């Protein structure tokens, strides 16, 4: 039986392909992590999300 790839594993691989965007988002949160509010780093996150969604689709 071939090992089944769980969707979450594919998702993790996609997220792993976007290290630049991920690090930009992480740095934005880390810059002032004691005062996080909703959508504090929205632009960075959307850029990150765009990247990993593209990688997820490409990984199909």
């Amino acid at each position, binding site marked *: 039986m071939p090992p089944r790839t769980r969707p979450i594993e594919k998702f*993790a691989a996609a*997220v792993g392909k976007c*290290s630049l965007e991920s*690090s930009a988002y*992480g740095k934005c*949160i880390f810059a002032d992590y004691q005062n*996080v509010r*909703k959508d504090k780093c929205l632009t960075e996150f959307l850029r*990150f*999300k765009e990247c990993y969604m593209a990688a997820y689709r490409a990984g199909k």
Partner: protein
Amino acid sequence: MKAISVCALIPRPALRRPALRGYRRYAVQSPGAPTIEVFNNHTKWLQKERAAKDAEKSRQVDYLRDEVASRLCERLLDIKRNFPCVLDLGANACNIAYSLSKPNPYQAEDDLPLSTRIENLTCAESSETLLNRDVSLPFNDALSITRDVLPSLESLPYEPNAFDAVLSSLSLHWINDLPSVLAQINTVLKPDGPFLGVMFGGDTLFELRTSLQLAELDRRGGVSTHTSPLANVSDVGGLLQRAGFKLLTVDVDDIIIDYPNSFALMQDLQAMGESNAVLGREAAGIRRDVLAAADAIYRELHGNQDGSVPATFRLIYMIGWKESPNQAKPLSRGSGMVSIKDVLEGKGDKGGKEGDS
């Protein structure tokens, strides 16, 4: 329309009064009932069953349980006794039995594994699949193992004074009513029998906890529970004392494991059957947005230079002895005549009096 139907459900005061009088009770906790409910035992059982169904994957992630079980068994080595009857409470896949059967590397003059000092080990666990996962492996021949499937670890079905020692490795952190379970352990022990336990505590997985919190704050504007509340070192001493144990020893050990990313950590936790089982958690699980954000924050906040992420497991080891009249007792305060500083530095002409256990 709605208001009318609700009104119809409420009985008029005249009708309600006798019923109320009939149900009036003193506010007394019924004995044996759990006082607090933090974890959903059924969910935990389902998670463990699911995890153990894939035996291969489940064995792969036994690294933590095996390591902790062997560290617990090292502590048992210090007790120079034979134990005819031992209980392993919350045995998982009998990891303690496996550690006991391994050759003992610390005693050059006595290379026999610890299992030779134990006649019968009772492994009690709520998840049957997990308990019987390794039933055909060779370590089962090293000592006689009785596998008991308990409906719940919160009430022990054993007779008082039944066991010479009780061990417990990485199970007590899922117990709702820890004071009651510790008191029951004290009851099933024979007088002067030791209880050696280890559980996750305090700062376990603080990296995961903080990055999920920050990710949820940014993405959703609020925080929900994704990791269990855990006991602190200072709590554990008090709990043992309250349960009636004597000669307590509590110590802490951190195991830090590096994972390639936070997803690998969460997958391993799931394969161990250690997923979140807190009552009132979100049924839908964590959103993918939050997962991705948490992974980014985890890396940035806690990540290593080489790109891996560390996960801290703080283990609280506890040793307590059941009270017995002929047990070594601590001397009264202020009666010490020898300075421990001199003894440790080798200045004292005679060593301090050592307990026999």
